[in-house]
Structures are given as C-alpha cells and as structure tokens.
C-alpha cells in the first residue's frame, strides 16, 4: 500500500518535473539543503590543490612567475591595441546609430562539483542566487564558452555544458560570418555543426564564435575550432566535427557573464507587457 502511494507520488513528480516548471521551487529549496554535501565532497580536491600550492618548488615558482610576466606583457600589448580598436568600434557604431556596449559584466565562480551521471555533462558552481546568478547566464573560461546556467539555488548553481547532447548554441564562423548551430554530442571533446550546406565556406581550423542570435549568449566569444570537414555527396549537409575551445573537463575557475542582452530582453518583456495592457485598456 505504501509502495503504491510512494510510487504514484514519484511518477507524478517525474511527469511534472519533465513537463512543467512548478517543481523548480521545490528543487531549488532542496538543492540549498544538499549544498553542504557538495561542498564537503569537494574538500579532498581542494586539499590536494592546497598541498600542491604549498609544497611546490621555489624554482618552479620563479619560472612560472617569469612565464606569467612575459605572458602579461604580450597580453598588455594586445590590450593597448584593443582599447584603440574598441574606441574606434564604438565611434563607428555611433555613426551607424546602433548603441552597443563592447564589454560585459562578469562574475568569478569556482567549480565545486561535476555531475556523477556519465550520460549528462553538468557542473555545479559555488555561486547561487544570493550572489545574483540567474538561469540562462553563459559560462566562460579563459579560452571560450563552456555552457549556461540551468538551475539556481541559494548558494550554488548548475551549469549545462556545451558537450551535453541537450545543448545547442548559435554560432558564426569568425572568418566570414556564416551562421550555424553547434550541438553537443555527449562526448566530452567533440561537438557537431548542424545543417551546414555542403557549399558553405568552412575549412579546418576555422574558429566559431557566438553569434548573439537567440539572445542568450552575448556576441563574439569563441566556442569551438573546426576539426574535420567531410563532404559526402549522399548527404544534404556537410559533416563537420568541431572541438570546444574551453577546457570543459579541466577549468576550475570560471566566469559567469551577466549578459546585457538578457537585461535588455527583460526590459523588452516589461515593455511588451505594458503595451499589452495598453491595448487591453483600449479594447475595454
């Protein structure tokens, strides 16, 4: 009898969770409850990291320091050019009457958990709704887009990675602006380019960047590099394998982008609501 009751409750929960959003409240509450478990589980790797840092050789540190300084110099040089270029970009955009900010607000977070289920590619981050994380925020590391936030609890949030087979992202080829959609394959080092015409101009080594279409990912972050391009005369589309740029299985410090597009979209929604009420008012 109790089995039946519990089984029916479970089935109802599964169906509601699959079809509706109402269970999100329950889930985020419970996730806040189990967040301590995730933090505790992360302790061994943090201790290992700490041991690595404290027992490292001075020689190695000196060397690394030198390398980093050299790298900083190179980057600073690039930055000098960037400031000039972005100023010019803004000026040109102003000439075209399109106001767009070049830089985004970002928030640093660290990865505290990896999803134990091998069928899904998800991460748990140390920042939650308390720090202002919202569902849909894109996640980056130093070299590219990693994924997007799919659920938020008070002290942690869950991210769907690019490589998960449920994830797709609108991109364009950096070289010529050809648009396409990159979907995950479920393998941690491979992505797929969907519905790209056989005649499209794409070659090995092309870099794919976010196109900003769809309003979820801001424009211009590198997503993946094209690996192999196959033209099969029997297929309507080219078969293109691409590798993610971000170090999806290694990065520990990551960046959450508080996308301005979303803020603007939020405003637009409000505006639409207002206009709708206005229309209703007229109808009345």
């Amino acid at each position, binding site marked *: 009898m109790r*089995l039946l009751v*519990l089984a029916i409750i*479970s089935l109802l929960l*599964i169906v509601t969770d699959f079809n509706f959003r109402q269970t999100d409240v329950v*889930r985020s509450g*419970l996730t806040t409850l189990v967040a301590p*478990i995730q933090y505790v589980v992360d302790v061994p790797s943090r201790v290992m990291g700490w041991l690595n840092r404290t027992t490292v050789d001075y020689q190695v540190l000196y060397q690394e320091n030198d390398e980093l300084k050299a790298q900083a110099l190179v980057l600073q040089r690039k930055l000098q050019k960037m400031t000039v270029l972005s100023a010019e970009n803004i000026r040109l955009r102003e000439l075209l009457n399109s106001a767009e900010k070049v830089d985004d607000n970002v928030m640093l977070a660290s990865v505290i958990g990896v999803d*134990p289920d091998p069928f899904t590619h998800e991460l748990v981050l140390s920042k939650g709704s308390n720090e202002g994380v919202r569902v849909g925020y894109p996640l980056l590391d130093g070299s590219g887009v990693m994924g997007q936030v799919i659920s938020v609890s008070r002290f942690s949030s869950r991210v769907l990675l690019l490589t998960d087979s449920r994830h797709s992202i609108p991109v364009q080829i950096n070289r010529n602006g050809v648009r396409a959609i990159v979907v995950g394959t479920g393998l941690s080092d491979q992505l797929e380019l969907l519905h790209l015409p056989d005649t499209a101009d794409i070659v090995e080594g092309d870099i794919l960047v976010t196109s900003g279409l769809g309003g979820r990912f801001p424009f211009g972050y590198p997503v993946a590099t094209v690996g192999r391009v196959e033209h099969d005369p029997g297929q309507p589309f080219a078969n293109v394998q691409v590798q993610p740029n971000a170090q999806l299985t290694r990065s520990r410090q990551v960046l959450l982008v508080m996308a301005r597009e979303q803020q603007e979209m939020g405003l637009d929604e409000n505006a639409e609501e207002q206009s709708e009420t206005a229309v209703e008012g007229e109808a009345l």
Partner: protein
Amino acid sequence: MSQPRGGVVIYLSLLVALMLSALPLPEDLQWWRPEWVLLVLLYWIVALPTRVGLGTAWILGILLDVLGGSLLGLNALALTIVAYVMILVYQRVRMFSWLQQVLFVFALVALDQIIVHWVKGILGVSSQTLMFLVPALISAVLWPVLFMLLRGVRRGFNVA
C-alpha cells in the same frame, strides 16, 4: 522490542553514502561508480527492517535526484521499488550464502538501474548502451565487504 538506539549512526552512514555518490570521479571511472546509497540502504533493511523502510528509501531517492540534477522522483521511484523487494524477502536474505547474496544484490541494483533507464527512455532522454549495468556488477562485488563493514559499525555502536 527494545527501545530503538543509534539512529544517528544509520543516518550518518546514509549521509556518507550520499557524499560518495556525489564524489567527482575521472570521466573513465564514472561508469564504475557503485550505487553506494542503494547498497547502504539495502544493508539497513536487512539488518533493521523496523527502522529503515520505504519512507527512508523514498527520501533518499529524492535527495539523490536533487544532488545529481536528474528528474525529480526518478531515483525515488527506483529506490522505493527495490527497497520493497528487499523488505519482502529480508528474512531469506539473512540465510543466504555469500554467493547467493552477491547474486541477489546484483539483481536488485540491476533492477534499480533498469527502472531509471526505462523511465528516462520513455521520456526520451536515454542512450542505447548496456554500460549502465556495470555499476550493478561493481556493487554486487563490493557487497560482502560493505556488509561486514556496516555490521562492524552496527555492533560497535550498538545500533538496534
């Protein structure tokens, strides 16, 4: 029936099992993760069926779902059904030889995995591989060790 004692030990062991099941593993090892929560739950059902039952199984399942980010209720359903089977036959399981116990635990963990994959399959979020039976194998092999360990814990802390 004497006064129940040592509930803390039961819940602590279940908490440790939850942590082990959330422990990050290298990608190649992920397939080989034993179903810790289910194993510890099965032990307590065999040992103390009056203390640990369907309710505990269901709550553990919900916590697993939340921790793993899977569909809410998925593991709850599987754990409840498996726990129910164990509650039906726990007296016989106590009389089993080690080999029989290992085979029985293999069947139960496989049942758990199959339920999870069935439901996922019905909802269209599953893949075509039998690899999901690997945890059942590992769990069954681990069962005797875990059984003796938890029995030591139960006797040491005088849980009844």
